[in-house]
């Protein structure tokens, strides 16, 4: 989120406190004085993780502190993992394979690279998944494992913590 606040001592701390109050986790704080701004304001960008449903409460708390929120950008799915699928991907309905992940609501396919050497030959694809949490990612991979088995595809997973 991008915030605008008064340039006075203690302001930044006053902004950070509500974040920890709602159980948020601060990933980065970018704090820059821009020459074209009024002297008494300060622009701060904060990247953070918030528990589900705490966003409105945080906005309320910050507004109480007199902080003006310029923009909130949202990246809902934070966990990312890349797998490789080999087999007759088109003939086994690739869009259905992708849809089985996308329809979960907690994970989705965000990138797909594919190579099809020749008709009737097995194709290979690299698929990047995003999910809400570590557990959701494991659940999404489990779905993909089941679908691969049904469709006789070879699923190559990353070794824990890689890729």
């Amino acid at each position, binding site marked *: 989120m991008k915030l605008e606040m008064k340039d006075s001592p203690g302001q930044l701390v006053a902004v950070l406190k509500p974040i920890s109050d709602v159980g948020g986790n601060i990933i980065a704080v970018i704090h820059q004085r821009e020459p074209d701004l009024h002297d008494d304001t300060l622009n701060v960008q904060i990247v953070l993780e918030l528990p589900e449903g705490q966003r409105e409460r945080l906005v309320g708390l910050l507004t109480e502190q007199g902080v003006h929120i310029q923009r909130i950008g949202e990246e809902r799915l934070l966990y990312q993992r*890349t797998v*490789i699928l080999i087999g007759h991907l088109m003939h086994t309905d690739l869009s259905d394979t992708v849809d089985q992940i996308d329809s979960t609501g907690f994970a989705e396919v965000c990138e797909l690279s594919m190579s099809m050497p020749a008709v009737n030959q097995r194709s290979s694809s690299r698929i990047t998944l995003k999910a809400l949490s570590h557990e959701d990612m494991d659940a999404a991979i489990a779905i993909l494992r089941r679908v691969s088995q049904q469709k006789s595809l*070879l699923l*190559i*997973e990353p*070794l824990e913590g*890689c890729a």
Partner: protein
Amino acid sequence: MKVALIGLGSVGRGVAEMIARKGLGITITGLADSTSGVIDPAGINIPGVLANKKTQGYCGDRNISAEDIIKTGDYDTLIEVTPTNALSGEPALGYIKAALLRKKHVVTSNKGPIALAYKELRALARKNGVALRYEATVAGAIPVMHTIENGLAGNEILALYGVLNGTCNFILTRMAAEGLTYEQALMEARKMGYAEADPTYDVQGIDAAIKLVILANTIWGNGAKLSDVDRTGIDLLTPDALRLADEEGCTIRLIAEANPHRHLLRVSPRILDKNHPLVFDGTLNALTLETDMAKEITLIGKGAGSIETASAIIGDLLYIRDHHVKRP
């Protein structure tokens, strides 16, 4: 210490040569290949026997069998290095039992009996007050068992994962480096002597799975069997899959993995960052152990070869000599 050596293939030859050359205080009093045997209580002339084997195809007297030596010979420790039979474990399983029943220590490189009958053999060795050691069954020259038993004594081993088949690692290395198909890389592995005429055992992950079973039984005593391993080989991988991994700074390796808390026993091709410690070229093996105190330990080294495997067997022999056999 007196030993009987059963099996005179590449591993047996390596063991015999090293015992003859290194002056370790080990005397071979009985020696057999699949069709003949030699007995000499004063110590067998190793270079002579090896020369016989080379010229005539068998090592000694056709009237002396491996069984004769094991059941009647004068020795402290049996070295059992016959070829692996993953289905029955025989004839090695019978040899090992016979020696343990005679209260002889046993050192083996044979995966079959250890993977199939670990519990029974372990109990038989305990009952007879002798040692059963099998360092050479997993990851060749790498002292995996010594590390687990001694170096990491007192640690709880939480999980393990590793590269336990050099043939697959070689094939995957060549597919990634040169964009070869699986068939081309396999052909190259055959030419180099890294792959058997029938590569099924290696490329379908069976060999790695057997080693995983041996590790799991040794560490957790959980009675794991080969059929418990969720196993996928490398024979269906495409060069495109390796290229797609490469574009992300990753590659693909055949990884054996065990984690008792997650009920996981799996051999499968996996995506790894190229900087991962388990990514290396060629036929090497490696194993990472996750433990409660030492945290992560990764061992890497030669997973096969005559002298390399002899190293593991001699390590076991000297351990038995120093811990179990009274020196003269």
